[in-house]
Structures are given as structure tokens and as C-alpha cells.
């Protein structure tokens, strides 16, 4: 068991946006948080990242209680919806950032950082873009840089907030496959936030369907399709019929 979320609750003022969320994730598993807009997906992901803190509940990773651990100490790689690339740094500098910020004792030597960055860029098929600035990249390329940057810190967990939402359908499908391959190759767990059913069903080992700050169902894609746990899930997945008939993995 890698990540364990236990009764996490979050309020904005008097508005309860997460209501006793429970979620357990296995090592190396790919999980999708799927739900309509405003259901609390981003909030949950940010709480996992340590960018926000829950008002109640517990978070643990590999048995270690991380409920109150700062984001910078969690070593969870995060890909933001806006990518949040450092605009004043080149692609290579962006990817190297996490390694350069390490305290001297654990920081790799300069040459070592350089070769690791190059390897990551090659892995993301953006090796030739190393010296460009983010403003000179396409959306898909930016997304790859953001992913390489998150992976550079050798994260214990990968968090992705709608990483494909700004891209067109074709690019999106290509990147989806690339992300899945990369995640399996690196062998780390990943949590993907999305409101695109097709995306979730194609990429994830298990899907958590969220509505109004609660997890309605958390199961393998085929089980969810076979037996929707609540009327909400059944209704929410209605649009997926076409995907199912065409066969998974178009």
C-alpha cells in the first residue's frame, strides 16, 4: 500500500468541498480521479501534494504519516493544469530545477545533473528542445516538459491535474499513451485528475468517481461499467457507451 487517504475533509468557509474521502492506492498503480466540475478533484489532489491541508482526516504514504508534511518534503511530482513552467528558464533548466534546489549533501554534481536532465528529455522525446524557452514551445511540448520536470526529482508519486485539457484530441491521445508507458517504465504510482471519462477509462488501473466532495465509486474500469454503484455513476457514465462498443484503446 503506497498512499492511504483516510476520512479527509475540507471546508472553504462553511462550504464542505471534501466529505470524508477514503482512498487506498497500491504501489505503482495508476489511479484516475474522475468527476464533474466542482466535485473536489483538484482540492483532493492539492491536499495529497501538500499544497493545501485537510481540515480533518489522515494521509499516509508507505506507512509514514504525511498529513502535516510540507509539499517540498513529500517528494511528489506534480504536473499542473497550466503546466506552471518557469518562463525565464530554458527547458533544460526547468527540468534541472528540482535537482539544483536540493541541499548540498544530496545534490548531484553539475555534470551528473546535466546527464540526468538529458536522459529525461530523451525519454520524453524532447531532447532537441533543451535550450528553448517555454514560450517557444507548443502545448504538447510544454506538457512533456512539465512531466519531465516532475519526474526529475525521482518522485515517490506522480500527481497530474488535467494535464491534457489544453490540448487537441489527437495530441491528447498520443500523450496519453506516452504517459502510461512512461509511468509503467519508471514504475511509480500516479494519480490523474480528469473530467474526461474516456481518458480515465483508457489510462487508469482504477477509477475514483467523485461527486460533491465524495467518492461515489472506486474500482477497476470494467467493474464500474458492469456495476455502477450509485445512480449518479450510472448517469455520469452514460456517454461512455460509444467508447465501450468501439473497444477499449482507440
Amino acid at each position: 500500500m503506497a498512499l492511504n487517504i483516510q476520512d479527509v475533509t475540507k471546508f472553504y468557509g462553511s462550504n464542505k468541498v471534501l466529505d470524508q474521502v477514503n482512498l487506498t492506492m497500491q504501489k505503482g498503480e495508476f489511479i484516475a480521479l474522475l468527476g464533474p466540475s466542482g466535485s473536489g478533484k483538484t482540492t483532493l489532489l492539492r491536499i495529497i501534494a501538500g499544497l493545501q491541508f485537510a481540515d480533518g482526516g489522515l494521509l499516509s504514504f508507505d506507512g509514514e504519516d504525511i498529513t502535516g508534511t510540507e509539499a517540498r518534503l513529500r517528494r511528489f511530482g506534480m504536473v499542473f493544469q497550466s503546466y506552471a513552467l518557469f518562463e525565464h528558464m530554458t527547458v533544460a533548466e526547468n527540468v534541472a530545477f528540482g535537482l539544483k534546489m536540493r541541499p548540498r549533501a544530496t545534490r548531484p554534481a553539475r555534470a551528473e545533473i546535466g546527464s540526468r536532465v538529458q536522459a529525461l528529455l530523451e525519454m520524453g522525446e524532447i531532447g532537441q528542445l533543451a535550450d528553448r524557452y517555454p514560450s517557444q514551445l507548443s502545448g504538447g511540448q510544454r506538457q512533456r516538459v512539465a512531466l519531465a520536470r516532475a519526474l526529475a526529482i525521482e518522485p515517490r508519486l506522480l500527481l497530474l491535474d488535467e494535464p491534457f485539457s489544453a490540448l487537441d484530441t489527437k495530441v491528447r491521445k498520443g500523450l496519453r499513451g506516452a504517459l502510461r508507458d512512461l509511468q509503467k517504465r519508471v514504475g511509480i504510482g500516479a494519480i490523474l485528475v480528469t473530467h474526461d471519462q474516456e481518458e480515465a477509462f483508457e489510462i487508469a488501473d482504477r477509477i475514483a468517481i467523485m461527486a460533491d466532495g465524495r467518492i461515489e465509486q472506486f474500482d477497476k474500469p470494467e467493474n464500474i461499467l458492469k456495476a455502477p454503484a450509485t445512480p449518479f455513476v450510472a448517469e455520469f457514465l452514460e456517454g461512455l457507451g460509444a467508447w465501450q462498443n468501439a473497444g477499449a484503446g482507440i
Partner: protein
Amino acid sequence: MTAATVTHAPLHPQIAAFHRRQRLKRLALILSAAAFALLVMGLPVIAIVARAFQEGLAVYAANIVEPDTLHAIGLTVLTALIVLPINIVYGIAVAWAITRFRFPGRRILLTIIELPFSISPIVAGLCYLLIYGATGLVGSWLDGWNVQLMFNLTGIVLVSLFVTCPFVARELIPLMQVSGRDQEEAALTLGASGWQTFRHVTLHNIRWALLYGAILANARVMGEFGAVSVVSGNIRGETMTLPLQVQLLYDDYNATGAFAAATVLTLIAVITLVLRSLIEARHPHAS
């Protein structure tokens, strides 16, 4: 294809007439704007320089190196050197607090930091005298410890801080509001500490706005008259900043000396203007 090979159809007479009228209107507007600028802003500057050099370069130079004037220049520069760093740190801190945190009183703080802009500097000076002067609330207590805040450099620095503290903050706040937390949060998840995040991410995004605000604040510190004149005590050769010195020389019927000193202030203004437009041209979002 080159431009020369492009042939235009003859312009419709109505359109041609329209263009003529447009050109005329534009010319009239530009001319009146230029004339106004020349009259209101250009002529005075020319007059200062002309008057300062009226009796020749030697007299001008002698007036500038006059010990009291030199001292005033030194005092003005010293004041700026003390006030600017404080202003920059204060500006960043306030902008950070306002744009990165939600706390009770945030709106009030946002209003209060603009206060120095809406208070007449002379009133500000009087307030400081009332509080920090030897008979004032804080001043009389400090007097018991033999500490005097007014009628010296400390007083000048204090009121200069007051009149210029909004400059940096008000440049940074709108910028930091739009540039958002995204990049900073990304840095945190990558393992950067708060200070590293500030140094490597935030500072880069705000540096031009910061410089812009600092330049405006500097111009104001060096040019401030009202507030400083109240708290400086006008001690000749001691607490006279450059603007005060100009006034003093003029009152002493030393017009050439006054205008010579004024050229230094004018020079600062021109440099400020040039730096400002350079920053605005290169980094339009800085202001």
C-alpha cells in the same frame, strides 16, 4: 514578390477625402499636444538650464561645488540609499502578504498602503513632528533617553519612508495578482524552500516591476520638499536636502546658485524618465 510590383486600384474619391480629413485632424491634435508639452514641461526645463549657465560654465561649476550645495547633494543621496532598500523589502513583503494570503484586514491594508499618496506631504511632516518631536508622544519619551529623531537625518529618512512606501508595493501587487501562485507552487513540489522559491522564481517574475517602483520611489525621495522641510529643521550645511537647498539659495537672492542646484534635480528627473521609458518599452507588463 516585392512591394513595387503590387498595383493599387485608384482610391475612391470619397475615401481619399476621408483620409485627407483624418490627416488634418491628426495634425491639429499632434500640434496642440506638442505645443502644450513644450509650454508646460519643456520650457521650464530649458529655463532652468539656461538660467543656471547664464553666467558661464565657471560660475555654474563654482556654484555646484559650493560646500553647502555639495553637502545637500550628499545628504540627498544618503537618504535615498537608506530609504530605497527599506522600501524594496517593505514593498515585497506587503505585496507578498496581500497577494499570497487571505487574512482579516487585508482590504484595509490594501487601502492603507496608498494613504501616503492622498495625504499632503506637509501634513505628513507635521504628523511626524507631533509624534516624534521632542514634545511629542513618542518623542518626549525618547528624549528622556537622549534620543532625538527630528531635525536630523533620522527625521528626514522617516518622512521620506512615509511618502514613498507605496511605490514599490503598488507596482508589485497587480503583477503578483496575475502571475499567480502556479510557478511558486511548482517550485515547492520540486523541493525548493520558501527562500529558494522566492529567489529563483518569484524574484525573476517581478524584477522589472520592482526596479520600476524603486526608480519612481527614488525620484520622489530625492525631490521631496514639503514633508522634509517640516522635520529637517533647516539647519544650514547640515539638514538641507537638495530641494531645501534650492529654496534656501533662492531666498538668499542667489538665483544662479539656486538654479545650478536645480539642474541636479532636473538631471535626476530626466534620468528617471529615460529609465522609466526604457523599462516600459522592454517590459510592458512591468508597470
